[in-house]
């Protein structure tokens, strides 16, 4: 009697995950295809990767993307953490306000946010390029850091903070010696997520890029619009591998910090 719904469950979930990952696997697979067309598999090659490494433009936009992603990650880690820690001491009503304001960038569709920033920055006559890219990416990455740090803060036993107060620590000492060490793993994971999100953004970057400085996803997007070429597959595959390194690293961090607290 019991086996039947379980079998249905396994079947449904397996089917779902296969569908979820088939498009990704297809991209990876065809990055190794000799033929430039997906119509047939003509044999294994690394040629497309070779071509990729010779592409000067890609190297350039990749560099821009990395600089933007890392700056964004640092800025949004600082801002998101500061905002989350601030909610610890303000009144409940103010905490709700901060929540709304911090999450606002996620509630506005990216196109609308991108357009509004484009119009605003051009009204301010800001030069489009690194500055606008970093500002806008920080804007939509900060909420993720805020959410992740906030979730971690909610897990901290309030009496630990009271104990610190009781033992003589002032507000800054508590932040420095108790809160920051306890949320550090979350900040790090969130910063890595911010890197990934920044490196993935197409919509807002389309509006923020300068005449000479575009980002990797915007460039890939324009390549894709031209048509299917295994070079794009190779590029996507490389990005995927890079992302998986980041994920592996962040998993490693969160596992380590969890182990430490398992018994607390």
């Amino acid at each position, binding site marked *: 009697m019991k086996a039947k719904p379980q079998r249905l469950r396994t079947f*449904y*979930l397996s089917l*779902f995950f296969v569908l*979820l990952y*088939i*498009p*990704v*696997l*297809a*991209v990876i697979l065809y990055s190794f295809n000799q033929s430039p067309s*997906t*119509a047939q598999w003509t044999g294994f090659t690394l040629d497309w990767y070779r071509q990729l490494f010779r592409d000067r433009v890609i190297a350039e936009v990749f560099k821009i993307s990395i600089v933007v992603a890392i700056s964004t990650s640092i800025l949004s880690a600082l801002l998101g953490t500061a*905002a989350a820690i*601030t909610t610890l*001491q*303000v*009144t409940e009503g*103010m905490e709700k*306000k*901060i*929540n709304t*304001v*911090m*999450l*606002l*960038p996620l*509630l*506005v*569709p*990216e*196109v*609308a*946010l991108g*357009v*509004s*920033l*484009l*119009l*605003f920055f051009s009204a301010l006559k800001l030069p489009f390029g690194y500055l606008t890219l970093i*500002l806008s990416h920080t*804007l939509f990455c900060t909420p993720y850091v805020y959410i992740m740090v906030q*979730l971690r803060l909610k897990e901290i036993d309030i009496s630990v903070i009271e104990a610190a107060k009781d033992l003589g620590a002032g507000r800054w000492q508590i932040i420095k010696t108790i809160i920051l060490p306890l949320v550090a793993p979350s900040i790090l994971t969130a910063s890595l*997520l911010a890197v990934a999100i920044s490196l*993935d953004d197409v*919509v807002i970057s*389309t*509006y923020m890029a300068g005449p000479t400085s575009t980002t990797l*996803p915007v460039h*890939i*997007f324009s390549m*894709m619009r031209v048509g*299917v070429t295994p070079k*794009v*597959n190779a590029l*996507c595959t490389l*990005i*995927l591998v890079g*992302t*998986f390194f980041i*994920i592996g690293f962040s998993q490693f961090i969160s596992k380590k910090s969890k182990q430490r607290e398992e018994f607390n």
Partner: protein
Amino acid sequence: MFNLKKIKQNAPAVPILVWTGILVGIPLIYVVVLSFLSRDSLGNIVFEFTWENYKRIFDPVYLKVFYNSFLLAVLTGLITLLIGYPVAYFTANLEANRRSLAMGLIILPFWISSLLRVYGWIILLGNNGLINSLLLKFKIIDKPLTMMYNFGTVLVGTAYMLIPFMIVALYNSIDKLDRSLLEASYDLGASKWKTFFKITLPLTMPGIAGGFTLVFIPALGLFFISDLLGGGKNIFLGNLINAQIKGRNRPLAAAFSVGMIILVLLVLYIYTRITKNKKEGLFL
């Protein structure tokens, strides 16, 4: 009367509110203002009040685009809900080890480049794509099927892109469900299906509403999906705004953006009505 103590307590919040206010609040207000302004023949903005931009929204061509986008976002919400609910429900009922594996697989796509994930569908569905070549090879068809460049393709791509949001929202809600309530329901004689419709579904309503909102909002504006999968025939709001920006018709782009935000506000309003008196927030 001002409560001095409260003001002092809330003072640290000021920089955060100011920062986000400048970067989100002012640009959004500016967009609204701009949507009422005119432009000269070179595309430069002229500070002259006009309803013209909004009148143009009601041009049947543009109205159709609004309708398309709204339909796409709603259908995306429904499809991801229908496919995602069983995924979330089954996952929540897995034993601990398998559950974290399943959750990992659901969350992983958040990290994978969205362009790559769209591109995968081109490879699968294209005229020279994987599916067509397989079908041709096994002689199931003798002419490639046209699966690309229609509304359905865009819908598939958008739903595929956003379904992890839906599942995570649903999962959080289902996972919070007190299992003893379900047991009580069985104990009182309700069947599995009855329990699902009378207990599980109503109690996970906040998750459903949250998931729908989280899917609906981005579905309105992911122009790269419709660009890559929809071709030139299927224009959505995102593409339209993008085109107006390129055509230097900024006031019109602003008006369309305002229209888009109004659609979002509508959904957010419905969301807050559904989740009223519930503790769960959209993200926290």
